[in-house]
């Protein structure tokens, strides 16, 4: 049986619903020795800012129970260097290339979005309004409904590309933010970003991370992510991309069943750089076994 794996999300057509999460896949090239990147539904590159950023001082990561905390601090080459040095190579890859963008002011977001309008080979923008790692950064946008709506509208007003807005879980009611962002014009939502956490070295009585707090990722957050995706799917009518602790096809399928149109694989790439290809293979195997010919027939089929 020939399986139909393609999904359409907010004007973007993907050959399958498996994407790589921003910040866990570099600029794609880092992984080219470990899998055929052409197999991926989409590659979401490391978050881009207007100017290059050095990020936080080390230590930046610490392992936790079934997960990890990171406080990389959005280190990146900047949007112009991305276009000049990274994008030409990525144009040779037959997967959707999605640029994740962030800023410290709405003007920054707007400028980055404008610069990417002219960049050939970028299929969509993912707007990070949720990164909890930078002291003056994204957290204020993503946790405040008015600001979240404002930044979404500002990017939508200037961008020619489909706009995905990535939501933070560090809020009281994620459906409230999701509705505001939808109303502000977002084409797609992706969730969740990392959950803010902390870890302490009891010998030295210091935080394990130089930044004190960091973003928790990995299987530890998957149940929380799944619950939030399910809630948001029921609260909005635009497509939702499920992210958070996906380690294998079983995890990815859970997100699709609750209604996510696609998934992003993040931390799992660190443990096994070829994991996304395995996930696609195992997803196809599941569909064959269940007699599901089109992945879209599986999405949102949760029975309660």
């Amino acid at each position: 049986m020939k399986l139909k794996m393609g999904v359409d999300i907010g004007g973007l057509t993907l050959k399958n619903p498996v994407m790589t999460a921003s910040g866990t896949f570099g600029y794609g090239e880092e992984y080219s020795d470990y899998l055929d990147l052409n197999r991926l539904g989409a590659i979401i590159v490391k978050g881009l800012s207007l100017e290059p950023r050095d990020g936080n001082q080390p230590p930046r990561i610490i392992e936790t129970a079934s997960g990890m905390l990171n406080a990389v601090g959005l280190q990146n080459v900047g949007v112009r260097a991305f276009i000049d040095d990274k994008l030409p190579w990525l144009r040779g890859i037959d997967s959707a290339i999605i640029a994740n963008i962030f800023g410290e002011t709405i003007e920054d977001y707007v400028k980055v979005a404008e610069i990417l309008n002219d960049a050939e080979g970028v299929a969509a923008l993912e707007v990070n309004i949720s990164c909890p790692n930078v002291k003056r950064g994204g957290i204020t946008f993503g946790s405040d409904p008015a600001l979240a709506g404002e930044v979404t509208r500002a990017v939508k007003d200037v961008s020619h590309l489909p706009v995905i807005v990535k939501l933070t879980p560090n809020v009281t009611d994620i459906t409230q933010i999701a509705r505001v962002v939808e109303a502000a014009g977002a084409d797609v939502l992706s969730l969740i970003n990392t959950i803010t956490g902390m870890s302490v070295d009891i010998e030295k009585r210091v935080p394990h991370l130089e930044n004190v707090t960091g973003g928790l990722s990995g299987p530890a957050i998957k149940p929380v992510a799944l619950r939030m995706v399910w809630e948001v799917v029921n609260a909005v009518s635009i497509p939702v991309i499920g992210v958070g602790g996906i380690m294998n096809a079983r995890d990815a399928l859970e997100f699709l069943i609750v209604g996510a149109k696609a998934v992003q694989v993040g931390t799992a790439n660190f443990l096994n750089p070829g994991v996304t290809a395995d996930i696609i293979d195992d997803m196809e195997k599941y569909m064959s076994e269940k007699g599901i010919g089109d992945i879209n027939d599986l999405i949102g089929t949760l029975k309660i």
Partner: protein
Amino acid sequence: MVLKASASFRESLPGQFVMVRMTDSNAPFLSRPFSIYSVRSRGGDTFVEILYKVVGKGTDIFSRLREGDAMNVLGPLGRGFDVPSTCKKIVLIAGGVGVAPLSFLAERCEKEISGAEIICYMGAGSSKALAGLDRIEGICSVVKISTDDGSRGHPGLVTEFFGHDMELYADNDSRIYSCGPTQMLRSLHKLLKDRPVACQVSLEERMACGIGACLGCVVKTKSDGLVRVCKEGPVFDINSVDFS
């Protein structure tokens, strides 16, 4: 620990590392980086050896493994040591299990750089912690031992011991290679500062991916800011690292 690995590991260079993880287990969650201690071929199979000390959860779990258990091994990764073929004196300064990549380096140099003298300064907390001593004694012309508690060799730090002899290696044909705790490398950096001695060090840092994507393992350098230990290193020229 000896790991059966793919034939591609035969290309491993001294100073390169592997990322090791239990197959199908989330404890420990992240892969652990280890310098390659040796690579051997036997009966068409390739075996990668690592040397480790139990310091935390990951190494504790590794220490309970039994023969035949499955691990995922990614590598060889990173940049190895550079040794000019004209080198006459190769000086190794090892702290604890930091001897692993230096032992691999010594083995290679003994085979590939004819006429070079290989000298090792080896330090550890106590005589019991002098892992890998027999092997490196079999390769080097001289192994000078020091222990913090004085239970074997020179009592005190390996860098002090080396410091006494430093003038012997001030010529252009000498190269120094070191691996050990950061404090030891910092002392070595202080000793060699302002001297025209070529020295490379292998650094250790927590890593998530080992392939340059997670940006978790950065180290501060003097001229290039924060760079990745996994990709730009783990071997660095000692003078490029900001140990302040």
